[in-house]
């Protein structure tokens, strides 16, 4: 049994604990400590990914209790992908935060690492209730982070955020109760096995459970009409926090992929026949509403938040298209949109700071201190987000559209929706860009300070990664196809987890 699987949760937990134990120590100590920890857990994730992609899923039985009775961690390609993604994103966010954001509130580093821990746990666990626990960890931590920096708007947004998410958690628990009531287990593999042999009555309960969970994950993913918690929260969060939050919606998508894609099987009779259709429609609506909402936004960060929703819609749509190719496209798109959104939120902060009192509002304001740098980055980011070549966004969109061609009955709709959404996004971003960088008002008496290397570096890092995603698009899509293949192969998942579980006693 590979103890390294624990690293992604134990390292953050430990560092958070140390930060708290030395609560009164100097902030610089905390910074270096938590950066180090982040580096470690990120590299651990990469190592795990390496082993995951080179072999079959690995199972880690907590306390040695054999599944389905104990809690297991299951490391497969899907979880590995998410781990690495989070590792990189977290690193960037933390780098940025260490340039001063972390001093604007209490316990930033502890909360940050707990958040990382919760997310990693959610990606690794093979047990439904444990998934819920991890969701709780990351929810509470994210609430703390969301309020980081204080202020009225944050507080208000945070209140809505936490209440809505708690409602979601409540339904999550109900769903789990249904799962247990219908199948007598909370282990994902065992549930998958039970689904194949469920009696009619159990079948109903399990179907209801599946849909309840779908609902919960859709809340996390901020699919319309469950997107209410997102825009205000993202628009008001501190920049590094918003950057980290770029992955929060993906947690919901991950849940759908894991539970409905793998355990239930989207095209299987265990869940209602129209589930894929629901995903398609929901995705389409989310995509359009997101783009539309961005069009009407008054501030850059709000705009970005809506575009995040839109990207979620695209991914949902792709998942709903079923099939390895479409799933691979969805995964690629998820990764891309996470990195891009993270970078954009950091960039938005830089722009906001340099526009004085106008902030990130989309009206004529003073010119930024570093027009070439920020303008260039914004252009790149806009291309990436809007899905124009040669960025990863274009490849992701193209992949989704290409995979849609295998579903002749929906291809027209999918094309119409995706292309329309892309167009609206293009209009929105071009408007925003031309206002921010061309339509200049009088410049203030004292020009704000230029952003230091330390705060530009994370942005560059993330954008660099997206560019890498497009340059290495070929191999990457191959990898994602591998991930998708494994993430839809239920029977072998069951075998691996329930057979070589590493549990003894």
């Amino acid at each position, binding site marked *: 049994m590979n103890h390294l699987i*624990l690293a992604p949760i134990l390292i953050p*937990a430990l560092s958070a604990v140390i930060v708290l134990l030395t609560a*009164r120590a100097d902030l610089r100590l905390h910074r270096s400590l938590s950066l180090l920890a982040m580096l470690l857990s990120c590299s651990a994730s990469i190592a795990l990914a390496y082993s995951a992609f080179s072999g079959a899923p690995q199972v*880690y039985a*907590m306390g040695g209790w054999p599944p389905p009775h104990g809690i297991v961690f299951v490391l497969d390609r899907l979880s590995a992908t998410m781990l690495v993604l989070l590792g990189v994103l977290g690193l960037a966010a933390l780098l940025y935060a260490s340039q001063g954001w972390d001093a604007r*509130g209490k316990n930033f580093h502890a909360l940050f690492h707990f958040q990382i821990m919760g997310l990693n746990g959610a990606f690794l666990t093979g047990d439904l209730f444990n998934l819920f626990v991890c969701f709780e960890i990351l929810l509470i931590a994210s609430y703390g982070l969301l309020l980081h920096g204080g202020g009225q708007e944050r507080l208000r947004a945070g209140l809505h955020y936490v209440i809505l998410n708690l409602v979601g958690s409540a339904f999550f628990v109900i769903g789990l109760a249904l799962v247990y009531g219908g199948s007598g287990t909370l282990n994902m593999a065992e549930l998958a096995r039970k689904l194949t042999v469920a009696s009619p009555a159990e079948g109903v309960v399990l179907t209801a459970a599946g849909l309840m969970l779908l609902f919960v994950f859709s*809340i996390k993913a901020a699919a319309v009409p469950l997107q209410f918690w997102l825009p205000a929260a993202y628009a008001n969060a501190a920049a590094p926090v918003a950057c980290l939050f770029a992955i929060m919606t993906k947690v919901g998508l991950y849940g759908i992929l894991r539970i409905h894609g793998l355990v239930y099987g989207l095209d299987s009779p265990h869940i209602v026949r129209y589930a894929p259709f629901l995903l398609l429609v929901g995705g389409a609506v989310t995509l359009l509403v997101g783009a539309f909402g961005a069009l009407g936004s008054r501030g850059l960060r709000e705009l970005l938040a809506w575009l995040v929703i839109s990207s979620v819609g695209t991914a949902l749509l792709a998942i709903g298209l079923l099939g390895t190719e479409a799933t691979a496209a969805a995964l690629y798109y998820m990764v891309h949109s996470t990195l891009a959104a993270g970078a954009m939120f950091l960039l938005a902060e830089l722009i906001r700071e340099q526009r004085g009192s106008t902030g990130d509002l989309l009206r004529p304001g003073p010119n930024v201190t570093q027009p070439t740098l920020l303008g260039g980055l914004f252009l790149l980011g806009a291309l990436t987000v809007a899905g124009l070549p040669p960025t990863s966004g274009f490849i992701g969109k193209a992949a989704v559209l290409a995979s849609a*061609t295998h579903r002749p009955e929906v291809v027209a709709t999918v094309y119409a929706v995706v292309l329309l959404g892309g167009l609206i996004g293009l209009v929105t971003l071009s408007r925003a860009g031309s206002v921010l960088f061309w339509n200049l008002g009088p410049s203030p008496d004292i020009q704000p300070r230029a952003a230091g290397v330390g705060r530009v570096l994370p942005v560059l890092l993330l954008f660099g990664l997206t560019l890498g995603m497009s340059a290495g*698009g070929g191999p990457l899509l191959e990898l994602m196809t591998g991930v998708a293949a494994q993430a839809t192969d239920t029977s072998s998942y069951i075998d691996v987890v329930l057979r070589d579980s590493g549990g003894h006693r």
Partner: protein
Amino acid sequence: MTLLLVILIPLLGAMLPPLMMRWGRGASAGSAILVTLAALGAWGSMVPAALRGEGATFKLPWIPALGLNLSLTLDGLALLFSGLILGIGLLVVLYAKDYLYKSDPMGRFFAYLLLFMGAMLGVVLSANLLLTVVFWELTSITSFLLIGFWGHRADARRGARMALTITGLGGLCFLGGALLLGHLAGTFEIAELTSLRDSTLSHGWYVPALVLILLGAFTKSAQFPFQFWLPQAMAAPTPVSSYLHSATMVKAGVFLIARLHPALGGSEVWFYLVGGVGLATLLVGAFLANLAYDLKGLLAYSTVSHLGLIVALLGIGTQYAVVAAIFHILNHALFKASLFMSAGIVDHQAGTRDLRSLGGLWRLLPFTAPLALIAAAAMAGLPPLNGFLSKELFLEQTLELPFAAGPWWLVPALATLGALLSMGYAVRFGVNTFLGPQPKTFPKPPIEPPWGMRIPVALLVAGCVAIGLLPDLLGAPIVELAAAASSYLEVEGVHFALWHGFTPALLMSGIAIVGGVGLWYLQRWFVPVFDQSIPLPSGERLFRATIAGLVDLSRSAKRAFHPGKLQTAIAWMILSVVLLVGSALLVKLPRWTPSPADIDPSLLGGVALLLLAIGAALYFHRRRAVSLAILGAVGLLLSMGFVYLSAPDLALTQLSVEVSTIVLMLLALHLLPAQSVKERVGLHHLRDGVLALGAAVVVGTLTWLLLIDPPTSATSAYYLAQSKPGGGGTNVVNVILVDFRGFDTFGEVIVLGIAALGVYAMLFGMGLPTRWTRPETPDESAYPLMLGVVARVLLPLALVVGIYLFLRGHNEPGGGFVAGLVFSAAIILQYLASGIGWTQHKMNIPFHPLIALGIFVAGLTGVIAIAFGQPFLRSWFEYYHVPILGEIELASAMAFDLGVTLTVVGGLLMVLVNLSKLPRSTSVRPLTLAEEED
């Protein structure tokens, strides 16, 4: 490889000009020229082979999964276009060097220009349809940057955005069409596509794919009805206009049509669509050009109409039509670029481009004027210039169409009309600018510009004349090569001649020329008429209205459906879950036989109590303290329910949680007004009622389902069996918590800790005044004597009880969590009795480390297991027999439980203390937001 270089040199070279700026504008421009020359050189090295018909190719897989490869080719068509791009590009760079004003950031300009050049070269050189899309979009983006170069001007911004939007729309459609085409053909390599033409044309998706791709082409080439963005793009500096908007970018659409003509052409759809749109554009453009006052606007519309002419020819699609099209592409590039440049000179030197304030520049610009006039003549299609040749060919082709289009004379007549109109605006351009009366003043006294701006014009015009005189020598070979590459039919033996003898075409152009002059003679009457009275349908105004409308719509929609109110959000949530799950129940509900459960009277009583209490709590929800008291009762009764189900652990937990909840909530109440806002009775009550009902039905049904066939779980049996032997405890609940599912507990403990930290951070962030400094008057009313004494007497006893619950937890009801809550309750009692100040002073535990310590201890027990080569959290226990004391069990679970206890105490007290440090007031702003909901 060289092919790739041709593209890469400009793309990478684009960095040079900005960098060179520090050595002055000359250096910057020089570098741009050098880069262009380098690219030209690389290109030139491949020309001979290409002319021999064995053009270079290059292929490198990029994204095999999508069929997107870096494959390039230099066939005839590519050769022609790349030649134009590079050649005219060079001239434009020369011209721009002197054209740009001192205030303009020249480096950025040339960077954009070179980027565009690279992208455009990519479009024409790529042999893979998807790759074409990639470069295609790049041209849109770079043109956006170039049009918006003078971003401080509103018209520039608007023009840039409009151009990007329209061409972007087209690009997206192109992408869609390309993907469809690639799917139905199974490849994106254009060569293969060409070979698959027949199967493609017969495929069901042919038409949609074709339409989408054509949309891309039409938008790019400003074909009707998308022609309106081009005049708006004239806000760009003139070099840009002459390069992008006459010679190259707008030709990309035409290029695409020509490129795909072998693969998609020849069908009826193709003919009517391409030909029709082309013809319409030809007429509309020419007509609008006759109404324009803006010099560049006039040229823009004329460009539109000439592109329409080319498209129409490609639509006709016979060999000679294609040849004519290609030939006209070449010609138009030459004369239109030169016209734009001379217009630029006029604008630059005279300070205006309004035809109404121009005239008689012949004398002031003795060098530019004749050149411009010649170019205009070429545009008008006067012999012996190149324009004449290709126009003749066009008119000729309209007489022999592959498919029927109305009466035989219709298309030729329209073509003639087009030619007539173009003659009209050509004369309008030439005469109104250079001849005729000279206005009294110009914004700037016009003088000839520097040679840098004159030479390019001269060269281009020379080209026009040369080709006009020696068409066979200069035009034919390349045209033939290009035409062959863009037709699915054999193309050979192409040659042009000024004189074909008396043909219908000659007659038609004769009519056109005469009529055109006449039209120009009439214009001073009809142009004002159109200006004032007849409002022309302006796509541009429509476009702007649409965007603005969409923005407003989006905002109002947000206000309506996304009003940042919790009620709305939660209503949507409940609605969706009810629909989602309810639908499943409707779909899959089996018919079951209800089994009447025997009902216990005492249970009835308890349930009645519980329901009463809950109802009351709801009823009093607006009076916070009251509902809180009632909620206390609810908790109590609930714990009694656990007792009824003989679940002592749950009862204990419920009770202990209850108390701390009440205290914390009371503290929180200090920040709220005693009563919540009175709601207006409204429709949303009905809504909520319906939703609640639906939710109740769904949940009720589900519960019923669970009850009628309770789960048979192997897991619970396993836990019961393993609890003692495997977990070393007889209290299964506790063993589950600390061992079987210890990891969950670990997580939840952390959640508790985080919650405390979060509250702490939040209160800190609220920046409220910390009221408390020293204990205030500990008078009888604040700290009653009795309470104080009893609380202190209770403390040690409570601690003992806590320890008791903790120690026995593993085997009997109790456990770390409950113990922790008891400890905290005991300490809370001290706070209540003696106030924060004194208590804090007596028991000064730093809470952060306490929480951390708890988590650490809990985690450590797990990690130690790893140290022993066991899995994380593997529990360990041993029974020891000590002489007097008897048997004693030691278990790692205890350490784990200790961690739980520490965190509980730390977290709870941390929240408590920090909450109670807040001022008691209803005017604390942050909390008003809790009220804003109703």
